[in-house]
């Protein structure tokens, strides 16, 4: 056990902090609360800037275009990154956070070489086609069908809530290839080119008035057999591992720290009965309580992260980071909105009232989805109860 940084690590921290301060473009700073509502084109551009610096994929080895950071360096990197106020592009999160570890573990050598470098460089944008109208929490009951005809799968059906589908070049998706046995048994994992004929995309407007996700329709879409990941009908096993990665990343520690920092700033600016709200006894305690929760989670995150090696599965422990991190983030943004007082009712009035107000209200609404995507809080608690605590399932 060692909680202090070495001199090298401190130097590294300085370097990262300085680079972000100098290189994160003003147009993207402070656009991140509650999950990014940042314009996808700006996300892609920012991803490319990170790549040019060699920092697009901190977890990946240098020979693949990654940064090859040690576990501690990764932690420092993410922490400093988030504190700069620069967003983590969703592009990176879906492809590198979820799919890349899967390809490393289950993909063919050809698939790894064909897809991973372009994910790291930001050249290709990916989306995740899991959910369907009738298959949300009950993911295994998905119906989108793929039948093998010669060397091609023919895909028919519909996906929904697909983040960034309208900007993606590729989708990784779950399809039903057999409906005879248990519902988990006939599922396969496919990589699909979004430009394939037969794909129709309909953006769906969220409460933020942005369209962060889409419905995607498949009408006899042809997918080459070589785009199957793992074995046919064995996609469910792969999925379990992937969701653990999604959950680990979703806990987004640095963003939480940044959000708390934002509350502190807003409360210092807000005058209440003649002094800054930050000095108000009730408010101070509310904020401090969140800091304690946040720091505890930070240490838990650090513990799990330090056990992780590239390609290794995080395990069901990731569920607790996801559920607690998401809910804590919501509480932090609740307090952020409380801090700005009457301004909390504002919507889209960036010019008159300043961006911090816009971010506070937009971020608050956005944060409501954190406990839904990637497996809802209820589902995560069931995973903790049954897979960690081994409580009876029925």
């Amino acid at each position, binding site marked *: 056990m060692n909680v202090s940084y070495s001199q090298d690590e401190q130097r590294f921290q300085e370097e990262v902090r300085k680079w972000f301060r100098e290189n994160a473009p003003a147009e993207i700073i402070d656009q991140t609360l509650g999950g990014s509502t940042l314009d996808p084109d700006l996300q892609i551009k920012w991803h490319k800037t990170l790549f040019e610096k060699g920092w697009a994929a901190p977890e990946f080895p240098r020979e693949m275009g990654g940064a090859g950071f040690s576990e501690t360096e990764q932690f420092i990197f993410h922490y400093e990154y988030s504190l700069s106020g620069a967003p983590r592009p969703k592009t990176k999160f879906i492809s590198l956070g979820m799919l890349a570890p899967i390809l490393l573990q289950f993909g063919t050598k050809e698939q790894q070489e064909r897809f991973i470098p372009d994910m790291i460089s930001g050249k290709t944008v990916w989306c995740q086609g899991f*959910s369907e109208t*009738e298959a*949300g*929490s*009950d993911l295994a*009951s998905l119906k989108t069908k793929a039948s093998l005809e010669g060397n091609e799968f023919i895909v028919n059906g519909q996906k*929904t*809530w697909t983040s960034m589908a309208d900007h993606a070049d590729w989708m990784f998706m779950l399809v039903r290839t057999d409906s005879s046995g248990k519902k988990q048994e006939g599922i396969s994992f496919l990589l699909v080119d979004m430009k394939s004929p037969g794909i129709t995309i309909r953006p*769906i*407007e*969220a*409460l933020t*008035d942005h369209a962060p*996700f889409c419905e995607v329709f498949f009408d006899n879409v042809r997918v080459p057999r070589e785009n199957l990941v793992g074995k046919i009908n064995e996609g469910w096993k792969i999925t379990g591992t992937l969701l653990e990665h999604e959950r680990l990343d979703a806990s987004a520690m640095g963003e939480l720290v940044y959000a708390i920092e934002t509350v502190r700033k807003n409360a210092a600016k*807000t*005058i*209440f*009965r*003649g002094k800054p709200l930050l000095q108000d006894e*009730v408010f101070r305690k509310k904020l401090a309580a969140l800091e304690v929760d946040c720091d505890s989670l930070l240490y838990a995150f650090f513990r799990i992260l330090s056990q992780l090696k590239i390609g290794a599965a995080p395990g069901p422990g990731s569920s607790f980071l996801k559920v607690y991190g998401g809910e804590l983030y*919501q509480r932090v943004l609740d307090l952020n*909105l*409380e801090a700005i*007082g*009457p*301004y*909390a*009712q*504002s*919507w*889209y*009035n960036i010019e*008159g*009232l300043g961006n911090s107000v816009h971010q506070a*209200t937009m971020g*608050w*609404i956005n944060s*409501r*989805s954190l*406990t*839904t*995507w990637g497996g*809802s*809080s*209820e589902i995560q*608690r069931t995973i903790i109860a049954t897979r960690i605590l081994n409580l009876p399932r029925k």
Partner: protein
Amino acid sequence: MDFELTSEHLLFRESVASFVKKEHSFNRLRALKGDPWGYSRDVWKKMAELGWMGLIYPEEYGGLGLDFTFVMVLLEEFGRGLLPEPWISTVLLGGNLVLAGGTEAQKEEIIPAIVAGDLFVTVAYLEDGGRYDLNFCATSARQKNGGFSLSGRKIFVLDGCSADRFIVTARTSGDISDADGLTLFIISRGASGVEITPLKTMDGRNACILDLKDASVSESDIIGKQDDGYPLLADIIDQATAGVCAEMVGGMDASLEMTVRHLSERVQFGRPIGSFQTLQHKAADMFIQKELAASATYYAVASIDEKTEERSLAVSTAKTKCSSAYLEVTKTAMQLFGAMGFTNEADIGFFLKRAKVTEVLFGDADYHLARVATMKGY
């Protein structure tokens, strides 16, 4: 002690409910989203024809002279449907303030026009640096040419984009946070030195920033007595707060109803999700919160009707409870709707946004909690 509604109240509830059903829908809210006002004058006129603008005003000004419980019934139904028309600002704040403290001439000029649905009036009292305090006022009123000259800035003036008249607080004496020394002035939208910056609120309604730059008013524009506007304002804000609580209760009720329907219909893992015990408990908690909020609101409304001494305490109790309960109920509802709840295509999200706006309207839970502590003597 009697918390029951009379048959007149119940009859009135039915007619308001059927009006809301006929004239309003959530799609109307979607259609009005980009509108600078966020409501329609046609619907307002129809409401006026039914006599609702004069609900609590005396008959001599064209009103119906009914008790405050009718306000609760009306606003609960508005809250169920999220009717966006500015009844609270015009009738419960603006007109009510004129009625409570205005001169005969002011009443005759303003109240019948409100009753007819021809005039929108609102109250402007919030300022930067004062959060929700009614007595915090940096806007000054200096004597000039036999009248006054007003300068200052008011923020988040409720329905301010469409108001014809503003009743503003301005300081005629005292320090920035004194209750004494506040005077209420009526000022018209088009008057010189009046600048309006429109704002959109989260729930699609409007508010404005009101800048007064040497705006001239005369002595006859004062409501109540010079330097003594605070008690008048405080009483009317209390009434409006009780009104908004009723609206919040209606919103909670509708949110719970929608959620229960969703829990019964949405199937996952081969069964309605409402059969999962965790979700049943969440729905049960929503119900408990709603019942507490409704009861506190009923008590506040009855206290206003009876003009009891503790009515401010009852109002703050109700608003504290409603502010937290409405948010709790709508956040849980969102959670139980899954991703669907996060879209503008589902109706439930309208309630979450309205819950946030009404939470801060006339003071959030913390503000009212502090008032409760003070009024309880600690």
